[in-house]
C-alpha cells in the first residue's frame, strides 16, 4: 500500500535520529526477551495479518522476541527509518528497497513475503474495458513518486501504449480513491488487494483492474528489510525473527479468519480496516501473492534469485535503477530457517 505523504518530515527525523543514536542499539531486555520494533509499510491493512496473529499466538515470544508492530507511512518512509536505524526491522516494498540500495542507502532484504506485486490500474467494471489499450484517451489518478507511478513507463511499454495518449492526473494517495468514486478520473493506480474493495464499498459499484503482474510488469513486492549492520552484530536475532515470521505466515495462510481478527484487535482504528470484512478480503487476496511459480512449495519468505533478477531488470530498464549490480547485493535467503 503506497501512502507517500511522508518522507519529507521523516528525512529530518532520520537525520536527527542518526546523529543521536549512532551505533545500532540492542534494545532493553524485557523478561529475558529482546524488544524489537517492526515498522510496517503503511497503516494496518489485511496484508499485515500474519504479523498480528504471530504476535498473538506467541510465535515471536517463543523465539525470545518481544515484538512491537508499528504502522508505517509508505515503504519509502519505512526504508529511510530502517536505514537510519531509528527502527531495527521494516516491512517494505522490495522494489523500492532495491532502488534505495542502488543509490547507496544501507539496507538488505532478508525475506520476501509477497512475491507478486499487487499494483494495478483500478476502474469501475461498468466501463467494460478488456485490455490496457482501452485506457487510451482516459485518465489515471497516480501519486507522484510512489511505486505505481515509477512503474508506469514499464506498464506502457509492455502493453504497447503511447504514454502521451493517456492523461496522468497526480494527487495525494488518499485522494485517488475519492477522485475515482467522484468520477473525476476514469481509473486509479493502486493495490487491487486494498483499493478495489474499498472503492466498491464506497461507491456501491463493482470494480475491475489491470494487474501489473498480469500485464507484463512482474515485480516482487513486500519483504523484511534491515540495516546491514544488524546482520553483522546480531545475526541470530535476525534468524529468530524470521523463523517466527515464517511460522506466522504459514499459520495465517491456514487460518485467515483468526489472523485477520488478531489484526483488528491490534489496530482497531485503522482506516483500511474500517469497513466490515475489508481486512478479510485484503488478506485473502494477499495470501495468493506469497509465492511465484519458482518459489511454490518453499517456505514463505524464500525467493528465487531469478525472480529477483527479473525485478532488477525491470527496475534498471524502466525505473532508473543504477548501477544494476547483482541480485545478491540486494536480497538474501541465508537468514531464513531452511
Amino acid at each position, binding site marked *: 500500500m503506497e501512502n507517500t505523504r511522508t518522507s519529507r518530515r521523516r528525512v529530518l527525523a532520520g537525520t536527527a535520529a*542518526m546523529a543521536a543514536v549512532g551505533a545500532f542499539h540492542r534494545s532493553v531486555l524485557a523478561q529475558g526477551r529482546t524488544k524489537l520494533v517492526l515498522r510496517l509499510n503503511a497503516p494496518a491493512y489485511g496484508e499485515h495479518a500474519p504479523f498480528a496473529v504471530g504476535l498473538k499466538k506467541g510465535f515471536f515470544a517463543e523465539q525470545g522476541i518481544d515484538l512491537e508492530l508499528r504502522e508505517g507511512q509508505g515503504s*519509502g518512509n519505512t526504508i529511510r527509518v530502517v536505514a537510519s536505524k531509528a527502527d531495527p526491522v521494516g516491512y517494505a516494498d522490495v522494489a523500492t528497497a532495491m532502488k*534505495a540500495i542502488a543509490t547507496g*542507502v544501507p539496507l538488505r532484504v532478508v525475506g520476501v513475503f509477497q512475491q507478486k506485486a499487487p499494483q494495478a490500474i483500478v476502474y469501475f467494471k461498468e466501463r467494460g474495458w478488456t485490455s490496457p489499450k482501452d485506457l487510451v484517451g482516459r485518465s489515471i489518478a497516480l501519486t*507522484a*513518486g510512489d511505486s505505481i*507511478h515509477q512503474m508506469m513507463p514499464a506498464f506502457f511499454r509492455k502493453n504497447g501504449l503511447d504514454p502521451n495518449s493517456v492523461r496522468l*492526473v497526480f*494527487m495525494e494517495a488518499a*485522494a485517488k480513491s475519492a477522485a475515482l468514486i467522484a468520477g473525476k478520473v476514469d481509473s486509479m493506480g493502486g493495490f487491487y488487494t486494498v483499493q478495489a474493495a474499498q472503492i466498491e464499498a464506497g461507491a456501491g459499484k463493482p470494480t475491475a483492474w489491470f494487474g501489473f503482474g498480469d500485464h507484463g510488469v512482474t515485480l516482487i513486492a513486500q519483504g523484511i528489510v534491515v540495516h546491514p549492520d544488524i546482520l553483522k552484530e546480531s545475526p541470530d536475532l535476525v534468524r529468530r525473527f524470521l523463523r517466527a515470521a515464517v511460522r506466522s505466515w504459514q499459520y495465517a495462510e491456514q487460518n485467515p479468519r483468526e489472523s485477520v481478527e488478531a489484526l483488528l484487535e491490534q489496530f482497531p482504528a485503522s482506516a483500511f480496516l474500517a469497513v466490515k470484512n475489508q481486512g478479510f478480503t485484503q488478506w485473502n487476496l494477499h495470501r495468493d501473492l506469497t509465492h511465484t511459480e519458482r518459489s511454490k512449495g518453499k517456505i514463505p519468505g524464500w525467493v528465487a534469485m531469478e525472480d529477483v533478477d527479473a525485478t532488477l531488470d525491470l527496475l534498471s530498464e524502466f525505473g532508473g535503477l543504477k548501477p544494476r549490480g547483482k541480485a545478491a547485493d540486494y536480497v538474501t535467503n541465508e537468514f531464513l530457517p531452511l
Partner: protein
Amino acid sequence: MIAPDERRSLKPPPKPWRARVRGVWEPLVSISAIIVLWQLAISLLGAPGFLLPTPLGVLERMQKDAGLLLFHSASTTFVTLGAFGVSVVFGLAAAVAISQSRTVERFVLPLMVFSQVVPKIAVAPILIIALGFSAKAHIIVAFLVCFFPILISTVIGIKSVDAELIDLTRQLRAGRLQTLGMVVLPHALPHIFSGLKVAITLAIVGAIVAEWVGSDRGLGYLLLVANGNFDITLVFAVLVVLTLLGVVLFLLLDLAERLLLPWHVSRRIGLQQPMQ
C-alpha cells in the same frame, strides 16, 4: 525659495563604492559559511550520503538538470505570483471594508482568523478534488495560505494613520474615497509592505502544498518524484532553487518598497551609512 544651485547640494553625496558593496558581501559571506559548514559536516562527521548530499554534488546536479528545474520553477512561480496577486487584491479590499465598517469587522474578521487556524494541508485535498487539478485550484489553495498577513497588516496600517491627519482631511472636506486614496493608504504603505513580504514567502509554501496534494508539475511535484526515487541530490537541488525563488521575490518586493517609500524611517537609516 531655494536657488537651483543650492538645491543640488541638498542631494545626499554619492555613496563610496565600499558602502555600495557592503550591502552585498555580508549575505554572500553567510551563505559561503553555510556551504563550508555543510561540506565539513559531511567530511568530518561522515553524514550518510543518502540523507545529505555534498554541496558540489548539488551544484553539479542543478547544472545538469537546469532545463528540468527551470520548467518546474516556471510552474510554481506562476502559481505563487497568481496567488500573491489575488491575495493583494482581496487583502486590500477586505482590509478597507473592515476598517470602514465596525459591522463588517465584527462579522468578517473572525472568519478570516478561523480560515488561518485550519491547517491548509488538511483542507487542500478537499479543495483540489472539488476544483480539479489545474493551476487555478493551486492558486486558490496558495491564496488561502498567504492572504492573511496582507489583510491584517493593511488593517493595522489603516488604523494607525494619525487621527489628526484624518481630522485635517475632514476639515478640508475631502470625501471618503479621497481620504482613503490620498491620505490613508499611502500612510499605511509601510505596514502593507511588511505584510506583503511575509505573504510572498507564504505564497511559495502554499504553492508547494497544493502541488503535493495534486499536480503533475512544479517544484513540489518534483520533490515528490525525487523523494520516491531516493534521489536526495535532486531533492536538495530543488530546495536550493526554491530558496532562490523566495529570495528573488522577496528582494523584488524590497526594491518596490524602496522605490515607493524612499521617505520612510526604515529607509532613512540606510542613507546614513556612508558617514560611518
